[in-house]
């Protein structure tokens, strides 16, 4: 995508209207959705953020990481532990701490993992994630009494006098985080840094020869990616009222990977679409086929790779291009 070239007016108009309509729907949702539907939308936004964060490290930097849940879970566990052991409900303490832990974890893991490349990088990230999973599973301090994981999490306290969060307000809170994060990530990928990252994904030695410290770029991408995954993890813990070792391990790590690949790597809207498809199929398929729904999801993934290899989001984008070109020629 890069600088996006010199886009036609029609295409820009169409994209803008999609964004406006989408924003309107997202804001108006609670008016017509049941609380179950609202919960589903909250879940979608959280995973869309998680997937977007993964797109930075995989889609843009080209680093196939299999341990992204480590940062998701690190953020979530920090919030949960602060509640469990210190009774902290205040969002303005828990969340910054959670983000800090996620960033530090990514900073540390990045230094270790980036000593390797290709498949070895993948294995190292996997191992680091599983290491955290194992810690969470075994260390007593990291669990509620007699349980696997930490329960008893409630919606956060925003310390606004006379105001308590309920699930509808929480939906809006998540929406705000999603929008702000999306905007920041959008700026990031369209900045000189973002363009360089794409160049590094394509050809490391050329980028080195042209003056870029490619290791540093990859490291920064890894850490930024981890930070936004941490934010998603924090939001998820409050949504779930519960955090478990699974949220640190491969079971969760592969989710943003599937969503991003399905939706379209290296585009920020792709992961959002991938997350939407995944969450909604997961939901409806598990209603109609309670034992078989992973099969349906898996099948969908395979089909999307076969027919829309660059992702469903990219496929739709290309369709849009064809339509606007056709419209343009009809107009003329």
């Amino acid at each position, binding site marked *: 995508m890069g600088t996006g070239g010199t886009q036609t007016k029609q295409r820009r108009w169409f994209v803008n209207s999609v964004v406006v309509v989408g924003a309107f729907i997202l804001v108006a949702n609670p008016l017509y959705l049941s609380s179950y539907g609202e919960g589903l939308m909250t879940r979608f936004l959280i995973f869309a953020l998680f997937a977007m964060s993964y797109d930075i490290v995989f889609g843009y930097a080209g680093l196939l990481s299999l341990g992204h849940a480590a940062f998701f879970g690190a953020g979530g566990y920090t919030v949960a532990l602060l509640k469990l052991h210190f009774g902290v409900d205040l969002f303005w303490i828990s969340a910054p701490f959670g983000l800090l832990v996620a960033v530090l974890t990514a900073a540390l893991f990045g230094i270790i993992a980036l000593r390797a490349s290709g498949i070895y990088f993948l294995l190292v990230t996997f191992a680091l994630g599983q290491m955290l999973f194992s810690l969470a599973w075994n260390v007593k301090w990291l669990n509620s009494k007699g349980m696997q994981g930490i329960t008893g999490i409630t919606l956060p306290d925003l310390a606004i006098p006379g105001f308590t969060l309920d699930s509808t307000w929480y939906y809006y809170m998540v929406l705000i985080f999603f929008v702000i994060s999306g905007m920041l990530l959008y700026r990031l990928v369209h900045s000189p840094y973002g363009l360089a990252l794409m160049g590094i994904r*394509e050809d490391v030695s050329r980028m080195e020869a042209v003056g870029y410290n490619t290791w540093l770029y990859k490291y920064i991408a890894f850490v930024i990616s981890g930070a936004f995954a941490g934010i998603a993890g924090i939001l998820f813990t409050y949504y779930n009222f519960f955090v478990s070792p699974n949220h640190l391990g491969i079971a969760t790590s592969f989710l943003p990977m599937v969503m991003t690949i399905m939706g379209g790597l290296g585009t920020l809207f792709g992961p959002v679409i991938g997350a939407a498809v995944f969450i909604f199929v997961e939901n409806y398929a598990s209603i109609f086929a309670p034992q078989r729904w992973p099969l349906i999801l898996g099948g969908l993934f395979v089909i999307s790779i076969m027919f829309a290899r660059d992702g469903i989001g990219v496929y739709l984008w290309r369709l849009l291009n064809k339509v606007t070109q056709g419209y343009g020629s009809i107009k003329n």
Partner: protein
Amino acid sequence: MNDLSFSVNAGERLAIIGPNGAGKTSLFNLINGQFSATAGQIYFFGENVTDLPTHRRAYLGMARAFQIISLLMKLTVLDNALLTIHGTKPHRYKMLHPVKEFKDVFEKTKHSLKTLDLWEKRDELVKNLAYGEQRRLEIGLGLAMQPKLLLLDEPSAGLTREESSDIIEIIKNLGEGITALIVDHDMDVVFEVAERIIVLHYGQIIADGPPESIQNDQMVREIYMGAEECLDPVNI
């Protein structure tokens, strides 16, 4: 490399020739930093760069056009150009402003692409350009880096006669501020642009001097035996 040692004068046009496997590209990789030297030192305008990584050397003023075109194929001409020109600028780390906001780089890029006659094709993916255009773009972008040293690795490979003469013109018009090291098999190109020629064979320098003396050197003729005619550009 086999006990290899030489120096290049600023502003010189030095060609390095030799049979395949002589170590010409390896030599460029050493100068550029893509290979680490196991022994020996490399000095660049008085500074010891032996342990510096490639990107630091680029920052100090080395630019390279690769033997196999190494542009970013899946990105557009414009993106490739922007990336190259940003490469040694401090704001290449900027994360919160769109690329297009950096007007000075954008203007420079536009100017470079127009000089290369590729501005019209700026939104084309590089992989869709003709081979000659890709070559022209790669060398042109190397120049746009305003390097002190330009390493040209087989710039005329795969080009037609006409395209090769375009490249010759570009090299001739480089200006005194740029030193050029050229590896090429096309003796027309070599004898047109080189002020000095080094002949490499199995990682060793076997001849070093102005074109006329190289042409007449006995050992050089022996090595090129069987292709002796090639050393004499008039006979092609």
